[in-house]
């Protein structure tokens, strides 16, 4: 477990460093293309990247929560949820995280934050409706495991970074309509050579793929690990098993989830992906979650 925590912290640092380097390189490329190699654009990109990375560390959990339209769970209305969270926090020795509810009929849940002292978990109203007490407890324990293992740090950072990569490639591709910002004299309008658009095209194709692969790599084994840790907390594997079985039966897509937050949730939130991998091979490069069948089979062995 401590090994896992250390590796997650290391990965987070790598993620931030890699992100800053990529953004700066792109900035440098843009600088070469439009500014004739001006240092100012590169430095500008470096500043932007550093600001984004810094902002991600401090604010990414808030972003993830508000993107998913999560609202704080009222302790009176959601007494059972609060009680379960408190009980499991005692079992695992964690401080109580923020508890949020997402209005969505699809059963799902996620955890976010940067460390156990600054963490939140969110569950959908659909989950509260469909799960009984032990099942809900299993799901909450799974989310708390993500918090304890520091999975939340890496995956929450990934939310904002995947998001900004998408933004960046968008920015570059859209700038092709402006001829790469090189229109200075009216005669330039006839200049059809627009190198920035090529950078944009390259980014547009490569960046989302890279971001997706990264996202998948980040979360796939963690889900199974968190399942096992969850059972260590509750000492009752059947609870989580039957919760996962219910998730498997349920075919509703979680609307509150977006591509950027897909890897945060306990179950793959997008529709049409086939939870059991029935539609495609058992492991696709872009799956953010292992098939539920596999996770259930693993828990049965405990």
């Amino acid at each position: 477990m401590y090994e896992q925590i250390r590796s997650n912290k290391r990965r987070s640092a790598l993620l931030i460093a890699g992100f800053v380097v990529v953004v700066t390189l792109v900035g440098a490329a843009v600088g070469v293309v439009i500014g004739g190699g001006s240092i100012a654009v590169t430095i500008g990109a470096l500043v932007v990247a550093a600001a984004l990375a810094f902002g991600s560390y401090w604010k990414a959990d808030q972003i993830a929560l508000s993107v998913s339209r999560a609202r704080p769970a009222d302790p009176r209305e959601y007494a059972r949820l609060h009680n379960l969270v408190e009980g499991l926090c005692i079992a695992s020795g964690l401080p109580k995280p923020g508890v949020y509810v997402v209005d969505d009929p699809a059963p799902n849940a996620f955890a976010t934050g940067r460390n156990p002292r600054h963490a939140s978990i969110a569950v959908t109203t659909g989950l509260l409706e469909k799960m009984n007490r032990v099942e809900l407890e299993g799901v909450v324990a799974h989310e708390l495991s993500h918090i304890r293992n520091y999975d939340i740090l890496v995956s929450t950072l990934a939310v904002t970074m995947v998001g900004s990569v998408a933004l960046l490639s968008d920015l570059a591709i859209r700038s092709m309509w402006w001829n790469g910002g090189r229109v200075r004299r009216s005669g330039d309008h006839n200049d059809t050579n627009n190198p920035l658009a090529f950078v944009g095209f390259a980014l547009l194709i490569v960046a989302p793929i890279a971001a997706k692969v990264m996202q998948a790599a980040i979360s796939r084994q963690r889900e199974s690990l968190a399942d096992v840790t969850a059972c260590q907390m509750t000492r009752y594997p059947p609870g989580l098993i039957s919760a996962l079985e219910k998730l498997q039966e349920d075919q509703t897509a979680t609307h509150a989830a977006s591509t950027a937050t897909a890897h945060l949730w306990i179950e793959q939130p997008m529709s049409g992906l086939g939870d059991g991998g029935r539609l495609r091979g058992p492991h696709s490069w872009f799956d953010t979650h292992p098939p539920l069948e596999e996770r259930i089979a693993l828990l049965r062995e405990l």
Partner: protein
Amino acid sequence: MTAVIIVLIIIVVALAVYLISAYNGLIRRRNQIENAWAQIDVQLKRRLDLIPNLVETVKGYAAHERETLEAVISARNAAVAAPDTPEAQSKTEGALTSTLRQLFALGEAYPDLKANQNFLALQEELSSTEGRIAYARQFYNDSVLGYNNKLQQFPTMYFARMLKFERREYFEADEAARSTPDVSF
């Protein structure tokens, strides 16, 4: 010559660093055990505080179930008066749990009581507090396991013995608590 001195200094420093971190690790684990034990007490107290409220609520609907109500109250008083040792505690708490079961079983016989919001809320509170007590004990035992492991492992065992770190005992449910309480109607 200087090379030998440098190597010796490195060894001494490494040893000191190891000793300090091992010592701090043991202290941290021992404090965690104490915190875990305190947490059990907090939850037990919380349960005791909930009971008078519950008894009042039930009285409003089933006042003539005097026997059950009195059994709960006397079990609670016994738990309050119990000395703060693990054995005494688990005995009185076990007795309290089984009388509470009977109290909640009354809900089945009195539909009005069963529909009462206050009763339902208290039932939820009490059952989750019982869950928390169990979890607190689990965390206590986990903490003891971690501490005892560290204490007996090589090479920590040698200097732990010198510094008088002692083995901790696990919390074990006594016979009364371990057997399922029987609920008679």
